[in-house]
Structures are given as structure tokens and as C-alpha cells.
């Protein structure tokens, strides 16, 4: 009986701790969401009420119109979908070469590919801006998309899966007259579908959330992504505009939150691919 009571108290303690930590983690999101959903003078009252009363979509609606958020979201969607498809394609092709083909200097080429993972964007963006400029790609969609179309992370991830495909399968397929091209698309790709899902989600999120490169290569209004556009809702020293950012933040964050709740498993798989052995 006593042991049961101790056990119950411990369990209650853990729930209490979990709840407190949850509140702290979620508080910034809650506070911003609340501010976005309250409009007019009330949101500047002191001390401001943290209770969800008198909610309205006015702030979000004006952020949507003033910030042209529909255009920003469409730009982000276009770029993220294009990059995701591109990375999956280039990763499949290169991973196939490294996993199923035999060619001279294969190890050297693979090591060179791997080495590119060590070069951070913070180093390359500087010169890539000049390259984009000389191609006439500043303020264009191709400027946003093309530099991100190859990812060594993707090649590595897909290659890991391809290496687990039994050699006999390839040999049997070859006996059936299946060439490399057909084997890639009709056997190897379907087998790697879960990994491709994780990779796709990972690349989509990374592209959607990118800040540094879009902030350099886009200077006009028409091609801004949502991440860059949010900043332009921010006008320092003008308190009345602060609510516009909160409206923009809600619009920018909600689709990603929903997506992550739906694709949680793929996300975890993608994030932990490099971290945990086995």
C-alpha cells in the first residue's frame, strides 16, 4: 500500500513537472498568438490580460492584406516544392551510382561529395550572390531554387538505404533484362520510399525556413519568401504596427505546425538520421 502511494505521488509529480515545462515552452507561442487575436486598444492595456477573451481575426486580416502574405506564401510554396522535388531526384541518381555502379575512383569521388557537407552556407552565400548576379538571377525564382537543388545529405541518406538492397535482387533483375534505369525507378526507388518521405519533409522544411540566402538574393517585393517578408512587417518605433508582425507570424507558423503534427514520424527519422547509430 505504502509503495503504491509513493508510486502514485511520483507519477503525479512527473505530470506536474511535465505540465509546468509545457507551459514554459509554449508560452512565447501562446503570447504571440493571443496578441495576434486581440486587436484595438485592448492589446496595449497595462497590465495586459493573458486570458483568451474578445478574440478577433482583424489583426491577421490586416497583416494578410498589408503584408501581401498570399503572395509570400505562394513564393515560399513554389520554391520549397521545386527544391524538394529537385533534391529527391538528384539524390536518387547519385545515390544509385554510389550504391549499385562500379567505376574507377568511386571512393575518391564519394569522399569529395562528402567533403561538401563540411562547407557551411554562411561561407558560400557571399560568393554565390556574385555568381547569381552575373547569371542575372538576383530577384528571380531560379536564384532561390537552383543553388539548393543538390544535397550531399540527401545522397548519403538514400545511399544508406540502397546499400541494404540485397545484391541478388539486382542480379536477378539484370538477368530479367532490367537495365539500371528501369531498376532505379521500378525497384530501388519504391524500396526507399520511407526514407524519401523523411528526406522530402526535411528539405521542404529547410527550404521553407531558409533565411540567409533568400535575404541576400532577393531585394524586390515580388519574389520575397514568407521568411523575408515577415521582416518587412516590422517597423521599429511604431508600436501600433507591432500587432501586424504577430498576425504575420501566425500565418507563417500555422501551416508548418500542422504539417509537423501530421508528419511527426518522418521528421524524427530525418532529424535523427545522422545522430543515432543503428
Amino acid at each position: 500500500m505504502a509503495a503504491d502511494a509513493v508510486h502514485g505521488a511520483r507519477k503525479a509529480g512527473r505530470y506536474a513537472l511535465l505540465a509546468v515545462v509545457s507551459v514554459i515552452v509554449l508560452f512565447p507561442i501562446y503570447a504571440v498568438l493571443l496578441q495576434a487575436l486581440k486587436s484595438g486598444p485592448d492589446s496595449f492595456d497595462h497590465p495586459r490580460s493573458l486570458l483568451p477573451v474578445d478574440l478577433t481575426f482583424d489583426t491577421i486580416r490586416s497583416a494578410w492584406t498589408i503584408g501581401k502574405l498570399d503572395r509570400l506564401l505562394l513564393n515560399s510554396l513554389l520554391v520549397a516544392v521545386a527544391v524538394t522535388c529537385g533534391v529527391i531526384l538528384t539524390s536518387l541518381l547519385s545515390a544509385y551510382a554510389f550504391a549499385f555502379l562500379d567505376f574507377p575512383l568511386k571512393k575518391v569521388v564519394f569522399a569529395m561529395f562528402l567533403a561538401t557537407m563540411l562547407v557551411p552556407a554562411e561561407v558560400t552565400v557571399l560568393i554565390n550572390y556574385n555568381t547569381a548576379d552575373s547569371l542575372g538571377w538576383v530577384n528571380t525564382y531560379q536564384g532561390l531554387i537552383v543553388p539548393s537543388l543538390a544535397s550531399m545529405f540527401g545522397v548519403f541518406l538514400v545511399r544508406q538505404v540502397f546499400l541494404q538492397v540485397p545484391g541478388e535482387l539486382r542480379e536477378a533483375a539484370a538477368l530479367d533484362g532490367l537495365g539500371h534505369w528501369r531498376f532505379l525507378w521500378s525497384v530501388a526507388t519504391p524500396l526507399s520510399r520511407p526514407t524519401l518521405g523523411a528526406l522530402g519533409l526535411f528539405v521542404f522544411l529547410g527550404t521553407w525556413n531558409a533565411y540567409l540566402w533568400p535575404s541576400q538574393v532577393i531585394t524586390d517585393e515580388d519574389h520575397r519568401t514568407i521568411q523575408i517578408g515577415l521582416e518587412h512587417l516590422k517597423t521599429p518605433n511604431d508600436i501600433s504596427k507591432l500587432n501586424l508582425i504577430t498576425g504575420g507570424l501566425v500565418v507563417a507558423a500555422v501551416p508548418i505546425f500542422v504539417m509537423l503534427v501530421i508528419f511527426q514520424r518522418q521528421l524524427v527519422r530525418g532529424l535523427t538520421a545522422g545522430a543515432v547509430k543503428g
Partner: protein
Amino acid sequence: MNRRRLRDIPWAVLMLVPSAGLLAVWTIYPLVRAVDYGHKQCNRTLTECRDVGWGQFSRVFQSDQFQDALLVSVKFAVFTVPTGLVLGLALAMLADKHIRGIGVFRVIFSSTVATSVAVASLVWFVLLQPQIGVLADQLSGVFPSLKEPGWLNGNDTALPAVAISSVWAGLGFSFIVVTAALQSVPRELHESALVDGAGSFRRFWHVTLPMISPTLLFLMVVLTTRALQTYGEIALLTGGGPQTTKATTNIPYLIYGENSLIRNDIGLKSAAATLLFLLSGVFAAVQFRGFGKRVHYGS
């Protein structure tokens, strides 16, 4: 075997060219070019460059601006990496119990992974506003500096404030990574330790921690690299300021920031970018060497 190697060549070329070409143009070339520009001085349109020698790298490295920015970068890593690691581990331990409703808490703890650099930074920009921000409203009794001058405007508070925003934004990622590691620790290990009469602290210290140490090392290196390369948070929260002291101008901001003093000099920026690349490599290598031996890579 040899015939097969030769027969596969056209296929290999065909399949490798898309990735190889893109990586060459957008990853290798800019690195080589940054090293090249690093010893040049050019006019603004880059039409005329003259070689000023490799000494430019050491001049940049020794310059006050770079040294100040380096100090800011290192401080930022010191503020964010241990905190991020410990909080990630604590949250993961807290949620590593098979009790009812734990799934909900796991979603909440990983939720900040959904926030981008821009979203997370602007969330904290709003919260930290001195006049109408929620934090100034609720906590200025404890921290008067939240209102006057406001944490993002104070010389001593600006960098810690950016660090708080960054740790919060990275919490979801750390939580997910550590949770996955905890789940890969075999149950039997815990059970046999329990049979041996080990208390929960000793089980954590002697079983859990060694088993997840490779993951913690990986996480530490990733967090450090990210900390050294932080740009968006600085650009959006402080613009490298407060302007009088440049208290948050780190190396990436020195290279890319609107308010950077060397913003129009490709030679100096290239040298700084190359040095940033080398520093990230050195930090990662030091961590792997320093902690690698203590990490348990069991079967």
C-alpha cells in the same frame, strides 16, 4: 569485374553529373573563390582587383572588428551550447516514461522545431519589446532592464536575449535527437542495473549517459557549429547592435549584416568567411578529439 567497371562509366557519369555540377558551382567554387578574394582588394563592382597577398588573412584576423566579432561568436556559443544540451537532455529524460498522455507532451516539447529562424526571432522581438512586450509587462518588477532600456537595447543584455531566443528555438531539435537516443538504449541494461540495486541517479550516470554519449557529442558539435554561424537571429533581433558597442556583431553578421563596417569590401568579407570556415572546423575537431575518447561507442 574490370569490364563491368568500364561498362558502368557512362551510367555513373550520367547519374553523378547533376549533383556534382551543382555542388561544384554552388559549394566548391564559392569556397575556392572566397580564399582567392581573401588576398585581394577589389572595387565595388569587382571589375578591378589587385593582389595584396596572404597577409590580408592575418590582418583581418588581428583587426579589432574581427576580434570583437570572434569574441561575440564565442560568447554566444558559451551561452547557448551548454544550456541547449542540458535542457534538451532534461526534457528528454522527463518525457522518457511510458505513461498515459506522454505523446502529447512529446509533441509540445518538440514543437519549436517548427519555428524558422525568422519566426522564432520575431516572436522574441515582440515578446521583448520594452513598451508593450509581454515580458516587460509581466516581469519588469523582477528585471527592470526589460523596460528600461529593454534587453535588446542594453549592451550587457542584448546577446543573452538573442541567446534565449536561440536556445528556445533549438529546444525541439535537441529534444527529438536525445529522445531518439534514449529509446535506443536496450531495456535489459536498465533492468539488470535495477536488479543490481542501482538507484535512479546511478542508473542515469552509469547506464544511460554512457549509452547516449555519442549522440550528445554529435549534438554538441551541431549546436556549436550553429552558434558560430548564427546570422538571422542577430539580423532580426538587434541588427548587430546596440550600435555604439556592436555588442551582438558576430562573425556572420560582420560578413552579411546591413550595418557591418566592412559591408562593401569583398576582400575583407572573403577573408572573414574563410576564417569562419576554418574556425568552425577547428571547434568541431577539438570537440571530437577532446570528448571523443570519453564517448562510449559500444556494440
